[in-house]
């Protein structure tokens, strides 16, 4: 009996502790939470900045977390997949990001403040992502990027609680949806707009096209894209002769064969497939062998220059049939922003293999720089200030590296519709480029331009 009574006491104590919360404590005020505008410190060390004419002498800068004016640092977190399934894409992004941040720091930083990156490897695991966010939340002013859609959704509540801004490193249209948008700054045309752009461009290549086959991975990436293709087909009067939305599973050869059979059987004029590069090439190869003659496109994630490398069986056919519209920068693009970025990267990373995802990192870092500068100039480097600065960028420019983007107004105003239309180019690849030839810059199709964007094309989360 003694044993029982002792444990009973222990559990009673535990129970009391647990029961201590009364229903009325659900109000939102919390005495432990630091107010948003906590500390005010003078930025007296900075001599290089150009002050706005309303201020004289040292400017008062509000800060809370992640900015240390005495040490002269701004700490920014990156939640990156460095070892998981998307590491091949995200590693170059992080390298590009770091390169650009080093360059920004070398040329004076943010009004004299040096940017410090805290990079964490999420392994593309939602658990790890959430855990690492928790680790960074008390030390960073914003997240320079957050890899993965379910991962970014999983921290959405915490972001809102912390007034923390994050740049999602995926192109899900839900990021521009009011339901998820509050603490996010997306960039580039989302998957569904991308589909509208690409299909619009294919229609300009073949105005007589009457049918389309659509196939995709399951999930926000594949299905957002497939929904966009369907919306485009409907607007353009294309008949959907094969619907393989969510039917592609890159890890399952049988699913590729099933989708290929569906495409072959429907003999479409246009094919839209959104999946990984290997699966895309697999489906294309089977359809090609069966004699399907169509214009092909898909989300840019399906592109990899390895598909048209020397010796690839589809090297010539892919150059003839494929077109993509990239929401991210293209290595060979002829504009100042891209040229600067490429020059920076080639100087910083010896033996760099041209790849668009390096440019993605540079573009993200430019976005970071612009946001932090805007927040500094408004005198508010708190998280809330950084968030507000990002949300009031009216005409964010990357000097052509990415199309300009507006972050103010309704979802229909802010969603990016511009993209760069490209096709695979073996000549460019052989000449040491990234294997893409730019056909159109700042392109938007009539379908995308006319599309009224009020909410996500494909609701995946909720």
């Amino acid at each position, binding site marked *: 009996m003694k044993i029982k009574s002792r444990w009973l006491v222990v559990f009673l104590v535990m129970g009391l502790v647990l029961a201590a919360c009364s229903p009325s404590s659900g109000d939102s005020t919390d005495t432990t939470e630091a107010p948003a505008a906590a500390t005010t410190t003078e930025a007296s060390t900075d001599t290089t900045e150009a002050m706005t004419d309303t201020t004289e002498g040292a400017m008062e800068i509000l800060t809370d977390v992640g900015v240390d004016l005495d040490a002269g640092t701004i700490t920014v977190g990156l939640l990156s997949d460095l*070892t998981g399934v998307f590491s091949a894409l995200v590693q170059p992004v992080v390298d590009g990001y770091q390169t650009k941040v080093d360059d920004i720091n070398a040329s004076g930083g943010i009004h004299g403040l040096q940017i410090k990156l805290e*990079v964490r490897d999420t392994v593309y695991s939602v658990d790890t992502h959430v855990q690492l966010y928790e680790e960074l939340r008390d030390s960073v002013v914003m997240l320079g990027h957050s890899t993965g859609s*379910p991962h970014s959704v999983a921290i959405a*509540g915490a972001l809102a609680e912390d007034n923390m801004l994050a740049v999602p490193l995926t192109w899900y249209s839900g990021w521009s949806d009011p339901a998820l948008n509050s603490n996010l700054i997306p960039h580039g045309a989302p998957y569904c707009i991308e589909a509208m752009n690409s299909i619009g461009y294919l229609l300009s290549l073949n105005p007589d096209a009457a049918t389309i086959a659509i196939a995709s991975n399951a999930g926000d990436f594949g299905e957002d894209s497939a929904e966009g293709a369907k919306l485009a087909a409907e607007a353009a009067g294309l008949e959907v002769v094969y619907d393989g939305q969510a039917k592609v599973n890159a890890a399952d050869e049988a699913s590729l064969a099933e989708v290929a059979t569906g495409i072959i059987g429907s003999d479409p004029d246009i094919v839209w497939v959104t999946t990984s590069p290997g699966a895309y090439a697999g489906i294309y190869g089977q359809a090609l062998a069966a004699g399907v003659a169509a214009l092909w496109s898909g989300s840019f994630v399906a592109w990899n220059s390895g598909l048209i490398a020397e010796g690839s069986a589809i090297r010539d056919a892919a150059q003839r049939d494929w077109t993509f519209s990239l929401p991210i920068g293209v290595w060979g693009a002829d504009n100042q922003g891209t040229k600067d970025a490429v020059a920076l990267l080639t100087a910083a990373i*010896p033996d760099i293999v041209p790849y668009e995802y390096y440019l993605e990192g540079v573009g993200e870092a430019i976005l970071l720089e612009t946001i932090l500068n805007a927040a500094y100039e408004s005198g508010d480097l708190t998280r809330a200030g950084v968030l507000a600065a990002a949300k009031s960028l009216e005409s964010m420019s990357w000097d052509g590296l990415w199309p300009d983007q507006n972050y103010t107004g309704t979802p229909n105003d802010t969603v990016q519709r511009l993209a760069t239309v490209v096709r695979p180019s073996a000549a460019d690849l052989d000449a040491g480029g990234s294997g893409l030839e730019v056909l159109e810059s700042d392109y938007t199709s009539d379908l995308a331009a006319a599309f009224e964007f009020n909410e996500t094309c494909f609701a995946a989360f909720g």
Partner: protein
Amino acid sequence: MRGRPLLYTAYESDQAILNTPTKKVMGGLTLVVLLLIPFGVIPGLDFLAESAWLRILSTVAVFVIAGLGLNILLGLAGQVSLGHAFFMGVGAYVAAVLGGDPEGLRLGFGLPMWIWLPAAGIVAALIGVAFGPAAARVRGLYLAFVTLGLVFVGDYVFRNWVSVTGGAEVGRTFPPLQFRVWKEDPPLIDFSVDSAWFGIPMTAEAKSFYFFLAAALVFMLLAKNLQRTRVGRAFQSIRDRDIAAEIMGVDEVGYKLRAFGISSFYAGVAGALLAVHVGSVIPARWDLFLSVQFIAIVLIGGAGTVVGVVLGTIFVTVLPRLVQDLTLWMQDVVLSGEGLIAKILDPIIATQSGDFGLINTNPGTGPGLSVFQLNQVIYGLLIILFLIFEPLGLYGIWVRIRNYWKGWPFTY
């Protein structure tokens, strides 16, 4: 019996959970320390009050529950299972469906925790028992293969049952951690928001930590008690020699089914708690690696003991964070500097593109293991080393230390 702690005059005191004064004192102290952790008042352990560390500790508590489940099956009854992750997944999705938001995109009934938490365990247990007859026919390596199959069946179902799991790439959200009487009632206790308890301000992480700690203590007590019952002794007899056990009258198949059922119950509850703790889970979470992690927990900690499971869990769960912090520290030292330590560490860690190092914080830039890969290598090495040199695990090491100090200054 002061001064003679090992003299027992009753069977009850011999079999007591805390059967020596030292254990009682240490047990009480541990409990006090655990309760004080979120306040950051314990010198040396104050860093644990950070919300990131509290999250890790909550994960430890949840993993302890799942680890105890596997320990009952593997450590007590001697049945190898690689299917533990599957049962955790089952528990998680039962919780998600029963407790999930009825207005949400996925199936959900909005029921309170007192329904979805036990249900998560019960459904997992039922599936475990249903699977039992197949598992009871085989043992050893074959049982490992059979249970391995469960993980892959589960993976397929979880990936494709979109209305329940959200599908492969998307996953679904899980109900918040709150006690409420019925569906839309205001929560009696809400662990998912910051608020005050007895006028003391508490973060959501601190409150959740207390909840998971209490749950882990309950399941530890249950596991410890199970070990001391007829059922527990039957399990151990099957583990040690199943034929001998059967000859003695132990119903082998019946007890194996029970072991699977109880183990799956633990796994189901732990899965539900893990999913709720993270808030959002994709089906790939319930993969083979998770099962292997629990094997590692049981083997590193010490098979068959509750304390061993706790030690093993702390080790396996906290190790990644320690390795990461160590790596970041080494990186800072090498980057910032001169000095002997920086020179020694330089070949170990790669700090920039093209630099050589055993560990590479940005693994794309050159050779070297990422922090995650390094962790996996360490797990693998430790499992091998423990199996060879210390089959009793951390618990065995602890017992040897204890015995050494018991006899000190004499060697025995």
